[in-house]
C-alpha cells in the first residue's frame, strides 16, 4: 500500500515537473517567435529608414518611446496598429504601446511616477492631470498646436495657473437619452432636441413614465410606489457628473479660478437635493448609491428606464449595440435645466511625462496621434469619442462626415442636442482648472451616500463636510 502511495506521489511530482517544463518551453517558443517578428519589423523599418535616409540624418538606432494606454490587451493591439503606422512614417522613432487595465490605471501611473519609471507619454485620467502638473511630472506641450488650422475646444484644455498643460484626446458632454417606445406607449411627444426641458417639466414627464405593476403612472393617486416596474428617469449621480446640476441651478463647486470651494452655497445644495428627491420624493428614479459609473448601462440599455442622463461616450460603448442587438429605439436631447442651459465636458488627455528622456519625440507622436483620423475608425465613428478640434463643430460638412453614420442617432437629433450644445453650452468639468479633484470627489461621494438614501439632507451633508472638502482643495 505504502509503495503504491509513494509511486503515486512520485508520478504526481514528475507530471508536475513535466507540466512546468512544457509551459516554460512554450513560453520560450512564443518569446523567440515574438523576437523574430520584431526582428522582421525592425528589418522593414531599417529598410524604410534607408529609403528615407536622405531627409533624416538619423544616426542608426531609432529612439524607442513607450506610450501607455488604458484597456485590454486587445484594445492595446489596435492602438499598436495605429502606432505602427506612425513608426513606418517616422524611422527615427519607434513607439511601443503599454496596456494597463482601466481600473488600475491611475494607481499604476502613481506607482510608476514614484519609481521614476513613467512611460514617455500616455493617456491620463482627467482627475489626476493637474496633480501631475503640480508635481512637475508633465512636460511642456504648449507648442503642440502652433500654426495649426484649428485648435482644440477651449473647454477641454487643462490649465494650471492659466497655462495649458494638456489637451483632451476626446470631447465628451453629458446629455439626455430617452427610450422612444416608452414615450409612444405613454402617448407623450419626444423631448425636443433643440430646446432643453425645464427641471419641472422633466419631473412631470418622468412621473407620467413611471409605471407600477398595475400599469398606473406616478401621477395617479392609486400609484403603488413599492412595486415599480418602469422608472421615468435616471439622473446619474456618479459624483463628478453632479457638478453640472450645480452650474445649472446657478451655483458651482469652486470659484472660477479653482482656488476656493463654494459648494456650500444654497443653489448647489438645492441642486443636489433635487437629484436625490427624484428617488426620495418623486419616486420616479430607482435608488442608486452613486458608487458606480454605469448609469446608462443600468437604465436605457436594459430597457427599464425611460430617460437617463449620461456621457456621450455611451453611444459607442453600449447604446449602438443595444440598438442593433436588442432593437432599442433611443433618442438624444440636451440635459434638462434648472436655471441655466448648460452641460459639462471632459475627456482624457494625451500627455508627455517629464521623466521621459525623449520628450521631443514623445510630443511628436502625441501630436500626430491626436489627429482625428487616427482614432476615427476605432473611437470616433463608433461613437465613443467626439472630435476635439473646433472645426468639426463649426464646419457642417465635417459634422456630417462625423455624425452621418449608423452608429449614431439621426443627424437632426444629434447635431442640435450634442454637437451644437457641446459648442455653445458646455463648460469645463472642475478637473480642467482645479487640482486635487480625485480626492475631492472621492470624499464628496462618501458625504453624499446618506443623501441618496434619505438618511441625511444635502444641506446637512455638505455643511458637515465643507471644512474637510476645502482642506482637500487646499492640499492639506
Amino acid at each position: 500500500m505504502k509503495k503504491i502511495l509513494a509511486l503515486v506521489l512520485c508520478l504526481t511530482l514528475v507530471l508536475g515537473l513535466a507540466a512546468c517544463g512544457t509551459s516554460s518551453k512554450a513560453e520560450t517558443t512564443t518569446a523567440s517567435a515574438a523576437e523574430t517578428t520584431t526582428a522582421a519589423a525592425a528589418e522593414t523599418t531599417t529598410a524604410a529608414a534607408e529609403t528615407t535616409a536622405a531627409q533624416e540624418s538619423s544616426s542608426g538606432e531609432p529612439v524607442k518611446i513607450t506610450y501607455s494606454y488604458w484597456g485590454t490587451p486587445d484594445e492595446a493591439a489596435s492602438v499598436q496598429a495605429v502606432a505602427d503606422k506612425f513608426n513606418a512614417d517616422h524611422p527615427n522613432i519607434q513607439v511601443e504601446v503599454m496596456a494597463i487595465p482601466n481600473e488600475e490605471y491611475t494607481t499604476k501611473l502613481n506607482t510608476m511616477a514614484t519609481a521614476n519609471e513613467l512611460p514617455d507619454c500616455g493617456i491620463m485620467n482627467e482627475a489626476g492631470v493637474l496633480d501631475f502638473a503640480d508635481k512637475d511630472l508633465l512636460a511642456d506641450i504648449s507648442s503642440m498646436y502652433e500654426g495649426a488650422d484649428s485648435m482644440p475646444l477651449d473647454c477641454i484644455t487643462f490649465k494650471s495657473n492659466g497655462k495649458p498643460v494638456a489637451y483632451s484626446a476626446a470631447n465628451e458632454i453629458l446629455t439626455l437619452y430617452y427610450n422612444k417606445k416608452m414615450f409612444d406607449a405613454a402617448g407623450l411627444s419626444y423631448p425636443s432636441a433643440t430646446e432643453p426641458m425645464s427641471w419641472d417639466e422633466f419631473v412631470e414627464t418622468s412621473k407620467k413614465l413611471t409605471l407600477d405593476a398595475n400599469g398606473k403612472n406616478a401621477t395617479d393617486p392609486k400609484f403603488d410606489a413599492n412595486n415599480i416596474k418602469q422608472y421615468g428617469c435616471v439622473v446619474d449621480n456618479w459624483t463628478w457628473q453632479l457638478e453640472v446640476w450645480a452650474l445649472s441651478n446657478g451655483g458651482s463647486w469652486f470659484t472660477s479660478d479653482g482656488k476656493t470651494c463654494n459648494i456650500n452655497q444654497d443653489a448647489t445644495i438645492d441642486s443636489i437635493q433635487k437629484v436625490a428627491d427624484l428617488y426620495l420624493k418623486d419616486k420616479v428614479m430607482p435608488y442608486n448609491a452613486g458608487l458606480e459609473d454605469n448609469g446608462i448601462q443600468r437604465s436605457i440599455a436594459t430597457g427599464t428606464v425611460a430617460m437617463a442622463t449620461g456621457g456621450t461616450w455611451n453611444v459607442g460603448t453600449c447604446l449602438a449595440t443595444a440598438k442593433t442587438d436588442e432593437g432599442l429605439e433611443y433618442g438624444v436631447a440636451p440635459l434638462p435645466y434648472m436655471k441655466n442651459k448648460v452641460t459639462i465636458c471632459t475627456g482624457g488627455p494625451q500627455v508627455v511625462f517629464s521623466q521621459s528622456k525623449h520628450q521631443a519625440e514623445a510630443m511628436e507622436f502625441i501630436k500626430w496621434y491626436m489627429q482625428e483620423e487616427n482614432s476615427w475608425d476605432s473611437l470616433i465613428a463608433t461613437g465613443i469619442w467626439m472630435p476635439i478640434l473646433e472645426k468639426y463643430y463649426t464646419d457642417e460638412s465635417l459634422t456630417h462626415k462625423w455624425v452621418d453614420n449608423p452608429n449614431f442617432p439621426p443627424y437632426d437629433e444629434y447635431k442640435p442636442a450634442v454637437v451644437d450644445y457641446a459648442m455653445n453650452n458646455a463648460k469645463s468639468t472642475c478637473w480642467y482648472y482645479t487640482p486635487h479633484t480625485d480626492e475631492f470627489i472621492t470624499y464628496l461621494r462618501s458625504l453624499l451616500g446618506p443623501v441618496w438614501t434619505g438618511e441625511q439632507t444635502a444641506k446637512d451633508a455638505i455643511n458637515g463636510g465643507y471644512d474637510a472638502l476645502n482642506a482637500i482643495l487646499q492640499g492639506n
Partner: protein
Amino acid sequence: MVKKPGQRTGRRLMSSESRTAHLCMIPAYVGLVVLTYVPLLAVFGLSLFKWEGVGTPTWVGAANYVRLFTRDPYFIDSVKATVLYALLSVFGSMIWSMVIALLLNRRIPARGFFRAIFYLPYVLPAMAVYLGWSWLYESNFGLFNYILEQFGIKKIMFLGSSSAVLPSLALIAVWLSGNLIVIFLAGLQNVPRVYHEAADIDGANSWQRFWHVTVPCMTPIIFYNILMSLITNLQVVTPALALTNGGPGNSSCFMSYLMYLYAFRNGKLSYACAISFTFFLIIAVFTGILFATSKSWTYYEGGPN
C-alpha cells in the same frame, strides 16, 4: 561549589544543537528581518515625513499623526467600520463554521461531497465571489430582494444603506470561512473518544457532552481560529474595492482601503504610512487583548507548562 559533570555536558549538547538550529533558520530570520521588521521600521520612519511619491521627503515630525487623529474626515468612521465588521465576521464565522464542522463530523451520507462544498467558497477567486454576491444583493432587481418581494416584505438596500452594508459584507465573510471549518473538523477528530464514552456512561446528553467535553478540548483550536480570523478580518479590503468603494458614506471605508486610497489614488505615501502604522498598533492591541484573556479559557492537554 561542585560542578555536576552530567549537567555541563547536557548544556554543551544543547548549545551545539541550538547553534545548528539557528544556523538552519537563517533563511527564516533573513526573511523576517528584511521582509517584515525593516519595512515596518521604514513605514514608521516615512510616516514622519511629508512625501507624495515624487521629489524629496521633508521632515514633518508627528504632523501626519496629528492630522490623522484630529482632522482626517475618514479616520474615525474607518476605525469603527473596520472593528465592527471584524467583530461581526469573527463571531458569525466562528458559530457558522463550528456548526458546519459538527455536522460534517457526523456519519452523514455524501460526507466528502458536503465537506468539499463548504470548503469551496474559500478557494474561489475573490473578485468572482463578490461580483456574484453583488447580484444577489442588488437593491432593485437582485435575487434576495426578489424573494423578499414575493413575501410582501419591503426591499432592503443591502449594500446601499449605511446600516445594512456591514452585516451584508460580514455575511459574505462568514460564507467564505471554509478554512475555519477544516481546522475545526481536524480539532473535533482529535477530541479523545474516551471522554465522550465516560460522559455517556455518566448519563450526559449530547448538549452536555458538547459543552463539557468537546468545547474544552477544542479551546486551543477555537483560540487559534479566533486569532486568525480576527487578524484577517481587521485587514479587510476586498469588499470595499470590489463592491462598495467604501460607501455608502464612509460606512465601509475599511482601514486598509483608506490606506490604499491615500497611497495609490492620491499619492500621499507618507500619510498612508502613518495610517498603516496606526493600523498596525490597533491590530496589535486586539491581538494582545485576545492573548491576555486566552490563558483563562484555553486548556492544553499537557497542562500549564
